[in-house]
């Protein structure tokens, strides 16, 4: 069995090696694919905090992914049309600056996650799954009916947003931005899982009664986890919209919520690199099998079935066995 640490290093090496190879052999499309994988991974790193550590099966994370996308779309749309976003109570202008857009996506997604979380966390189990799904569907239909921002057709942004000192239209540079953000999110999520907060959240998933008995508020622990989780997925949404220079209601769709969850299940629920492995495998299948047949999802389904049946810890569980204990 391979150690989980070595597997993680191998996955990171692929994330650096493949785009580097593509850059030198002039294959920009491969770089774009890897960027897509990095962004999906980031979205799933967000969900993994809620799902893997906190045990919150959210089938509505597209709400945050889509919100991040629309934050980028709306800010950039106002910047490219030179129209203010709001004039009252104070002037808000659009922007093409990535850091500003990221900050807005993080904050607004966190806010939305707080609202959705406060209401959904009153329920558990299948009701929690359904209520999170319902919130994401509300966002979906809201975006369809909001014609000011393209309604069903979505919004096109002509030029990718700017990052100080970089040419974001160069695929390898935009990849680097997304990859560094993914690394940062992985680092934070690794720290968080081992932190006192992570310990308490992890215990709240296994034995809420115990956590209450030592004087901690399980609901609040879960809500905070949900907010951090939603914020990270929202940031991924802003990057995804920037990758495509396009945002549409599809980003709010329940299929997307499902896909984010599928990444985690393929890779390994609660494993640090589970979302990364899952997103990588998904994008690879989408690319190679999608070229062969329109119905490539059948094979994805088959893979998912095999993993769920034979490897409870996802691919990482199959390759590395059970998670090591912390000491």
């Amino acid at each position: 069995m391979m150690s989980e640490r070595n597997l993680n290093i191998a996955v990171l090496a692929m994330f650096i090696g493949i785009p580097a190879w593509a850059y030198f052999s002039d294959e920009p499309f491969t770089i774009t694919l890897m960027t897509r994988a990095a962004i999906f991974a980031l979205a799933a790193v967000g969900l993994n905090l809620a799902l893997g550590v906190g045990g919150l099966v959210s089938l509505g994370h597209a709400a945050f992914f889509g919100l991040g996308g629309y934050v980028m779309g709306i800010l950039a749309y106002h910047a490219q049309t030179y129209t203010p976003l709001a004039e009252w109570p104070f002037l808000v202008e659009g922007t093409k600056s990535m850091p500003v857009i990221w900050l807005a996506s993080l904050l607004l997604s966190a806010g939305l996650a707080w609202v959705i979380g406060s209401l959904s966390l009153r329920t558990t189990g299948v009701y929690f799954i359904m209520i999170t799904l319902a919130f994401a569907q509300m966002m979906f239909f809201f975006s369809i009916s909001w014609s000011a921002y393209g309604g069903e057709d979505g919004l096109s942004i002509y030029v990718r947003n700017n990052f100080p000192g970089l040419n974001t239209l160069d695929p390898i540079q935009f990849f680097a931005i997304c990859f560094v953000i993914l690394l940062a999110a992985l680092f934070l999520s690794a720290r968080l899982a081992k932190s006192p907060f992570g310990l308490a959240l992890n215990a709240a998933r296994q034995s809420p009664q115990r956590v209450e008995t030592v004087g901690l508020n399980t609901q609040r622990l879960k809500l905070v986890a949900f907010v951090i989780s939603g914020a990270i997925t929202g940031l991924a949404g802003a990057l995804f919209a920037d990758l495509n220079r396009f945002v549409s209601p599809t980003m709010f769709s329940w299929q997307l919520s499902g896909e984010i969850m599928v990444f985690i299940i393929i890779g390994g629920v609660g494993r640090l690199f589970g979302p990364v492995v899952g997103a990588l495998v998904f994008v690879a299948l989408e690319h190679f099998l999608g070229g062969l047949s329109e119905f490539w999802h059948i094979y994805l389904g088959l893979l998912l079935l095999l993993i769920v049946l034979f490897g409870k810890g996802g691919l990482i569980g199959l390759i590395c066995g059970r998670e090591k204990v912390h000491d």
Partner: protein
Amino acid sequence: MTDPVLATHGLTKTFGSLVASEDVSIDLKPGEIHAVIGPNGAGKTTLIAQICGTLTPNSGRIELAGVDITGRPTRARALAGLGRTFQISALAMEDTVLENAVLGALGATGNPWRFFKPALKNIELREVAEQALHRVGLDDVMSTRTAELSHGQRRQLEVAVALTLQPRAFVMDEPMAGLGSEGSKVLTEFLSELRSEAPILLVEHDMDAVFALADRISVLVYGKVIATGSVDEIKRDEAVREAYLGDDA
């Protein structure tokens, strides 16, 4: 007379027409072990659930150190100084023994909002946790997964987690259940010393342990306390013999 650390006053709880607790008034004084015994279905677990906050009584009050805690949630009672152990272990099974104890230490600080530094590298949390584990004799299995512990070790860990809270009063729901004779002997000795630190309200089926440990015993039958007194008084009590102990006691 000293004031009780923990007291219930006229606690009544009904489920439909079933009266699970009827006017239960018991108290726990500093330095004592007060055992609650009674046949199955007598309402012992219901009583504990009300004291610890998982059930709300229909009427009556619960006081901890003179403060009314009746309406407070479980976590507030824990912070006010109630250390509970469960009948069926409610530990985080995937976590290690040390992690479970650190969770208790973390709960006692009241501040889980620390997101960056590893919990197990926090010297204060770790010291409290390791000391508690040492006291119950679990030093050797600190980095073992809780699921891999024996039944008796889980009981010990339950007690260790309660110790990390440094409570004013312990409420223990059948800590001896499922322990072998050797195990329950060790735990009996340990609890006997523990009472000087904080009094223990002990619900227990193991009569040998109860008679060896208890300063006072209350007998619960059909939700009512039919007798309270010292071990000898209870052993001699006619009503208790009839209801519960049988002639051979």
